[in-house]
């Protein structure tokens, strides 16, 4: 590439004095240096993967003028985050001074591993996950279309049978844990996710657990 083809086309100037022949090889080292310098610069400064986003719809703020009756949720689980620990209880919350039919609520601890929270959610939300599996098969077999697949999946998520999740955080919880939890909920195809404010008595329960 760097050599210039010589000879050829030299037939007619026999009598003329020839220019002094010098090496046609060019030293390419500086060029290579420069090329690699630029290469390193671009490799280091460029970002390839655009950041991804995870969307989360928060419940609208309740109108303070309107008193809303607390809704009775039959299939819910509440996660409580504190520092790097995660606790949960199922169903409604019963404080110690007003125990429900099964007594006061007791917190259970889990963790962010595949065997912890992921298994727990997969078991509790098996209704939606199984429904999704059936839909996946139908989609693969081209029995249903993309749009109806999405619609039916949303119907499954909205079904009263599906698991609803409430998230409460204390003032030591980190954003990482919060996002990790949301992520696990998305893996488990949870349709209703509601981050809500924590009650004082629940804080006491966490503090007792941590001790």
């Amino acid at each position: 590439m760097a050599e210039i083809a010589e000879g050829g086309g030299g037939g007619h100037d026999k009598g003329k004095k020839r220019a002094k022949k010098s090496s046609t090889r060019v030293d390419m080292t500086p060029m290579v240096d420069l090329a690699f310098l630029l290469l390193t610069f671009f490799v280091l400064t460029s970002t390839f993967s655009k950041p991804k986003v995870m969307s989360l719809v928060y419940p609208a703020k309740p109108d303070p003028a309107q008193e809303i009756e607390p809704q009775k949720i039959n299939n819910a689980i509440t996660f409580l985050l504190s520092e790097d620990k995660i606790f949960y209880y199922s169903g409604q919350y019963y404080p110690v001074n007003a125990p429900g039919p099964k007594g006061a609520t007791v917190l259970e601890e889990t963790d962010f591993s595949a065997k912890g929270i992921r298994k727990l959610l997969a078991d509790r939300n098996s209704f939606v996950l199984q429904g999704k599996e059936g839909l996946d098969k139908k989609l693969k077999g081209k029995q249903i279309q993309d749009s109806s697949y999405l619609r039916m999946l949303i119907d499954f998520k909205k079904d009263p049978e599906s698991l609803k999740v409430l998230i409460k955080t204390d003032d030591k919880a980190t954003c990482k844990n919060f996002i990790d939890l949301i992520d696990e909920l998305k893996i488990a195809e949870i349709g209703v996710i509601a981050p809500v404010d924590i009650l004082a008595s629940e804080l006491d329960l966490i503090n007792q657990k941590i001790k």
Partner: protein
Amino acid sequence: MPKIKMPKSSPSIDMTPMVDLAFLLVTFFMLAASFRSSEPVEVDVPSSISDKIIPENVLLVTIDKGGRVFFNLSDPEARRELLLNMAVKYKVGFSEEQVNKFTYMSSFGCTMQELPGYVNMTGDERKSLNTAGIPYDSTNNQLKDWIYYGNIAALNSGKTAFEEAKSKGNVPDPNDFKPKFTLKVDNKAVYVHAQNVINVFRDLELNNLNFITSMEMAPL
């Protein structure tokens, strides 16, 4: 012992293929690169399985690990309108040059009163500046105004972009031109800080929020 004579060969190697390769890679990176914009803070974002790419038109609020809040709006047209509205509201004067500079700035985290000085700084000065972030407590909720006016400005410029796309004969989705509200939170930030910022959004009835995350593999 007789000396072993090595066959004499030229010590210079033909570097042409290497140069070819190097320049090929340089060209590739030059064309494929999108440059990292210099942000005033480094934020280490959590990871998630989400594969939704960050939308074009975003209103971004960054929360660093100390809980300081930074604001950014991606659309330069909307930024100009936003700054002019904010300048009127807080009675802070900006020169034409400062407005232009602001239009192409990245995130900023300072009070409205500090902003003219902040705009005049260079990138390195901004990084080393010790700010307290944008205030968002109930007595001095500047973040709320930034979000409120930012949303209006982004909606306006989105509307013009929508009309433009429509006049070209496309059938655009109006939702693509609306600003998306994104939060960039640090891994180590305490969630209460994020919650406070989220409550500012919710006060403005903006409930659909996005968290910026890095990608991780979904479990099988």
